[in-house]
């Protein structure tokens, strides 16, 4: 019997992308998610509301005869009527136009800052959770420090440098906003990496970044999407809070938070001024939440292929 020696073997390397490939001729991940999302009626309604609001925010102010800052002494505190569909505010400005001008600001702030926060938070949290050790220890202390700095100071400083406006506000919300997601993703990754399927992948010698992309991320994506849908209202509220203490966007621009804040003063005597912004805030949140739930189910790998 011939002896085995090294020359008889050829190192063929490993194709890391294919070694786990599944022979099922299947839909891509996102195609599958989209298919399941469409089947979820509630989620679809939510999606429609968001799209509708977004369209109205873009077009409604263009087709109104009132400017968003036109004041009118004759229409102060006017209730909803044919002339002013949603009534007027304390200085006689048309609420319909202001609501949609406000929607531009609020939706932009909510979507952008929540999305940026999610991405940054997920990456940093994922790295900390996966690698642990010194990196984790240091990052978590940085996070603690950042979290401990009063966010107002950060907001004021950002606005000092960049001025008042939507973009500085988004940046200010992002400086510390990612920390929540980061902590949460870190915890999840920490838990997942001890699980058998990750262990198995590791034993097979799959590189870390592929484990993260193929195994860890799909498993936390559901929670992450839920988190994102919570973060959008969070960001919109944060803006409203900053407006509440006078640090929001520059007048005469408005946001839903500004409108709600202006309206809350008249709760007892002109309730429409608070009910209307509150209604739009609530329905947006409702839609986002329904959508979020649908998305959660749609991207959950464990529910894949099921109805």
């Amino acid at each position, binding site marked *: 019997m011939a002896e085995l020696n090294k020359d008889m073997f050829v190192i063929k390397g490993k194709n890391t992308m294919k070694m786990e490939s599944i022979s099922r001729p299947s839909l891509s991940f996102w195609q599958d998610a989209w298919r399941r999302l469409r089947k979820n009626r509630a989620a679809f309604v939510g999606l429609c509301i968001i799209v509708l609001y977004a369209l109205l925010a873009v077009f409604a102010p263009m087709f109104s005869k009132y400017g968003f*800052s*036109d*004041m009118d*002494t004759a229409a*102060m505190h006017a209730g909803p009527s044919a002339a002013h569909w949603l009534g007027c505010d*304390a*200085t*006689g400005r048309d609420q319909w136009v202001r609501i949609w001008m406000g929607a531009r600001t609020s939706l932009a702030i909510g979507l952008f800052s929540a999305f940026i926060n999610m991405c940054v938070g997920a990456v940093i949290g994922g790295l900390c959770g996966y690698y642990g050790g010194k990196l984790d220890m240091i990052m978590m202390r940085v996070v603690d420090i950042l979290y401990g700095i009063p966010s107002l100071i950060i907001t*004021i400083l950002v606005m000092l440098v960049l001025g*008042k406006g939507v973009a500085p506000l988004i940046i200010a919300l992002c400086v510390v906003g990612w920390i929540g997601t980061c902590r949460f993703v870190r915890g999840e990754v920490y838990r997942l990496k001890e699980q058998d399927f990750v262990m198995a992948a590791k034993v097979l010698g799959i590189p870390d970044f592929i484990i993260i992309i193929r195994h860890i991320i799909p498993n936390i994506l559901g929670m992450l999407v839920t988190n994102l849908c919570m973060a959008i209202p969070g960001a919109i509220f944060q803006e409203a809070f900053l407006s509440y*203490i*006078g*640090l929001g966007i*520059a*007048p*005469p621009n408005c946001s839903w938070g500004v409108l709600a*804040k*202006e309206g809350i*003063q*008249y*709760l*007892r*005597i002109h309730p429409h001024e608070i009910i209307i912004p509150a209604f739009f805030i609530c329905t947006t949140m409702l839609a986002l939440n329904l959508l979020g739930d649908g998305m959660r189910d749609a991207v959950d790998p464990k529910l894949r292929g099921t109805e």
Partner: protein
Amino acid sequence: MKKRILAALLTLAMTAAMVTGCSTPSTGGDSGEGGGDSGAASGEKVFRYATNTEPTTLDPTKGQSIGDNEIQHAITEGLTRNTAGEVKPGIAEKWEISEDGLTYTFHLRDAKWSDGEPIKAADYEFSWKRLVDPETASPYAFIGDYLKNGYAIETGEKDPSELGVKAIDDKTLEVTLENPTSYFLSLIGSSGQYAPLRQDIVEEYGTDFAATADKNVYSGPFKMTKSENNEYIFEKNENYWDVDSIKLDRCELSYVEKPDTQLSMYEAGDLDYVMVPSAYVPDYKDKSEKFMNGNVDFCYINSQSENKVLQNKDFRLALNYAISRKEYNDLANTGIYEPFNGLVFPGLQAKGKTYGEAYEMKSYPIEGDQEQAKSHLDAAMKELNIASPGDIEIELTTTDAESSKKIAEVIQELWQKSLGIKVKIRQVTYAEIYGNVFPEHDFEVGYGGWGADYDDPYSYVELFKGDSSYNYSQFVNKDLDELLVATQKETDTDKRMDMLKEAEQLILDEGAFVPLQARNIFYMLDEDTTGINFYYCSLNIDWVYADVAQ
């Protein structure tokens, strides 16, 4: 399934127990008082009200807000007592004023501190020297500038012992002033900074002096028994020299930040007096009364701004004529303030009547004058070679408070509509506007206001005196400065008043600022309560002589 519901119910019950079970933190020193609002039942006369600015200190010397001073007005007694402008003897029984109006000699009556010690002339001397001493760092030290050498001591040029106040003996106090100040007696009757202080108490507690109610003794009609957790309780001071005039047994002041909450508390019967939040005034007009608190609001115009148009008198006048102050007031303040086109609060005393009655106002029309505005704007554009009003942009700086924001938005809209210029709003924090923006003249047009500490027009016109610390608008006019210096030396009060009116007119004619409004405060008072006074200098509500019907 049933079990799960049971579990849920159990959790609910547990939560309820947790929520209601733990006791609230102790509210401190009000034990033994038998609870706040049951005063009437025990036959006590109690007055309850709220403030929306938290008192910053209980040390009379360091008071810096109207809220601080309102408290001091009740717990300290000056040489005189100023009740809504009427000056009566306080601890000083009588006094003599020298011919030149510079030297006052006060003769003190037999009066006691709340701990039974006699009030001596030396207590005033100590207090006033402490006020101007740089070591004390009182935020209101400048109010001691009326006393001889007051300003020099403040700046460290002279020693506090050189201040123009001297206790001749226990009952006689000699005061020397820097200038003849006709309103000096009125000033010391309403400014807590001129209250007496006990040297032994101040030195005993050091920096903790008056930190809480028990770390001080009181000379006024009331003594403070509690100052914690946003509650301030005053009780009648039995050692007060004029205790028979005091009807109330107790007063309870709550710090409640939100005016809406105050209104709710009043309507729930928790307060006897409330200021109606401006948003609600139109609907409460029938139920409420009003007083003017002496505050006038206006826009400063930085007349040495880098924005050339603001250096132009015609443009400044155009800004003034363009605004219909009536429309402005309706939009910005739901019409509750008085549209105002002057500088000096018209309710001040002058020539035995009010300033507003004594002099006729010659100024921009309340309704605005669009034609005048246009012609002044045209003149300004011609002079500055500007082709179209759209090329002019000015920046309006305001604080981030909701009311200021609304006011700024309205002014912005009115100027843009009327003149066709561009107006940008810049919002800064309160700390910034009075910390940097105004003192460093880092603004173009800025929304601000003024309320006087003493009953004299000088306080208002001084805002435009060339070398004044408050001259935020960098307005310099030689005639005005000379006029103002002369008023300080003039001893004939009527003549002096005419000079001050002349100064106000000069400032208006130059378009140095944009007057907007004089404030009205609407309030509701429980019908059983009487004897509340309102004032427009350094304090608003004065409840010392209040009475509650049983």
